[in-house]
C-alpha cells in the first residue's frame, strides 16, 4: 500500500478584504508543511502563524466548535461551500482531501444578504432575523407537562429531528445559484410544523418567516438542488416542499395575513 505523504505544500488563492466597505481582492498565499491530518481551519491557523511571523495581517475566518456542530465556520473552497467533501463542515474537512502542489481558491460565502465583514467572515445575521420572525414556539410558563401527554409518532419525530439538524451555517445560501435561504427556512418550518407544539402558530410562522426571508434580500428557490448537496447536515428539499405547503395553507386557508 502506498503511504500517504505526511506533509503537503499548497498555494491558497484567498479572498482578502479589509472591511465591509473596502474593496476586496484575491491574494496568493503559500501554505507550507501542512499535515494531511489537519482540518482546513487548522491549516488556516498554520498559515496565519506564518503571516504573523512575517508581520502581515492574518486571514480572518469564523469558527467555534471545530467539530461540525455549531455552524460558525464556512467558506467556499474550490467552488464548493464547505469544500469538496459531502456532509462536512469546513472545520471537519481534512487536508488529506488535497494533494501536494494544489492551488486552492478560498472565498467567503457570497450573497447580497451576507455582507463580507473581513476576509472570509460574513454577516449571517439575516438568518437570525428569520429565527426571530418565526423560528420559535411560544410556551406558557408553569408546571412542566407530562412528557407522554402528547403522543408523537416515531416517523414524525424522526422527520422533525432531521429538519432540526440544521446548524444555521448558511452553506445552502452560499451554494444556491440564486442565493436562496429556502433550505434553512424549510428546516425551521418543518421542525416546528411537524410537531404538535408548533401547530398553533404554524400559519403565522409561515407567513412571517417568508416575509422576512424576502425582505433580507435572499434569492428565490429555482429547485437547482445545490443546497441539499452542500448542506453539512444533509437536509433534504423535501423540507422545502413542506415549507411551500405550509405557506400555501397559511396564505389561502388561514385567517392570518
Amino acid at each position, binding site marked *: 500500500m502506498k503511504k500517504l505523504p505526511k506533509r503537503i505544500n499548497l498555494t491558497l488563492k484567498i479572498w482578502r478584504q479589509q472591511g465591509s466597505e473596502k474593496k476586496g481582492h484575491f491574494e496568493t498565499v503559500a501554505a507550507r508543511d501542512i499535515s494531511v491530518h489537519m482540518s482546513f481551519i487548522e491549516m488556516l491557523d498554520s498559515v496565519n502563524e506564518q503571516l504573523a511571523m512575517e508581520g502581515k495581517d492574518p486571514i480572518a475566518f469564523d469558527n467555534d466548535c471545530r467539530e461540525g456542530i455549531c455552524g460558525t465556520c464556512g467558506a467556499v473552497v474550490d467552488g464548493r461551500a464547505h469544500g469538496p467533501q459531502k456532509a462536512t463542515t469546513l472545520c471537519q474537512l481534512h487536508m488529506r482531501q488535497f494533494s501536494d502542489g494544489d492551488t486552492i481558491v478560498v472565498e467567503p460565502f457570497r450573497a447580497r444578504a451576507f455582507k463580507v465583514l473581513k476576509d472570509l467572515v460574513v454577516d449571517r445575521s439575516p438568518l437570525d432575523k428569520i429565527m426571530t420572525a418565526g423560528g420559535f414556539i411560544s410556551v406558557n410558563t408553569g408546571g412542566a407537562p407530562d412528557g407522554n401527554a402528547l403522543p408523537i409518532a416515531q416517523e414524525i419525530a424522526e422527520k422533525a429531528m432531521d429538519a432540526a439538524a440544521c446548524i444555521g451555517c448558511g452553506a445552502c445560501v452560499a451554494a444556491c445559484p440564486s442565493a436562496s435561504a429556502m433550505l434553512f427556512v424549510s428546516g425551521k418550518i418543518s421542525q416546528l410544523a411537524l410537531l404538535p407544539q408548533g401547530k398553533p402558530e404554524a400559519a403565522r410562522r409561515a407567513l412571517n418567516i417568508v*416575509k422576512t426571508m424576502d425582505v433580507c434580500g435572499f*434569492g428565490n428557490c429555482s429547485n437547482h438542488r445545490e443546497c441539499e448537496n452542500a448542506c453539512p447536515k444533509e437536509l433534504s428539499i423535501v423540507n422545502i416542499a413542506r415549507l*411551500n405547503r405550509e405557506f400555501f395553507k397559511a396564505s389561502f386557508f388561514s385567517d392570518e395575513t
Partner: protein
Amino acid sequence: MSWLIQTFSSSIGKKLLMAVTGLSFIGFLAAHLAGNLTIYAGGAAFNTYAEKLHALGPILTVFELGLLVFALLHVITGITLFVQNFKARSVPYEKDRSAGGRTLSSVTMPYTGIIILGFVVFHLINFSFVDKSDRTIFEIVRSAFANPVYMIIYVVVMIIVALHVRHGFWSAFQTLGANHPKYMPALMVLSVIVGLMIGFGFGLLPIYLWTVR
C-alpha cells in the same frame, strides 16, 4: 385582496405562478402535439384536424386568451425571478462548482425561456397570422419546412423546449409542495421522459416534412 397581492409577490407565490402556468403549457403542448401528429396521416387529415379545431369558435378563443394571460404571467414572473436571483448573488464566485444538484436544464431556464418566447412570436407569424385564403394550412406548413433554414430553426428550438421542460416538469411539482420519497424519484424520471417526448415528438415533424418536400 391585499393578502392575494402579498401572496403572489412573495418568493414562493411567484414560484406558484410559474408552476401553475408552466404545467398548463406542458398540458397545452401535449394537446398541440397530439394534433400535429395527424401530419403523419397526410395533408388531408391535418387539414381536417385544423378545421375541426377552428370550428370550436368561441371556445377556442377563450382558450387562446387564457394561454395569452398565462404566457404573460409566466414571462413577466420568470424575468422578475431571473433579475432578483441575479442580484441576490451580488458578487459572483471566482470558482463555482456544482455540489451535484444543478443540471444543464436547471441553470439555463431563463435563457431557454427567452428563446422560447422569441420562437413563439416567430411561430405565430409563420402559421397563425398568415393569409390562409388561397392555401390550406398543410400547404403552408409543408412549404415552410421545405426550406432547410426553417427546418433547422424548429428542430433546434424543440431541443431547447425539451431542456426547459426536463427541469420544469418535476420542479413545478416540487414548487407545488408535491415531493415525497414515495413518488419523487419517479417524477424525476418522468420529467426526463416528458422532455424527450416533447423534443422528439415536435422535433421529428419538421425533419419528416423536409424529407417529403
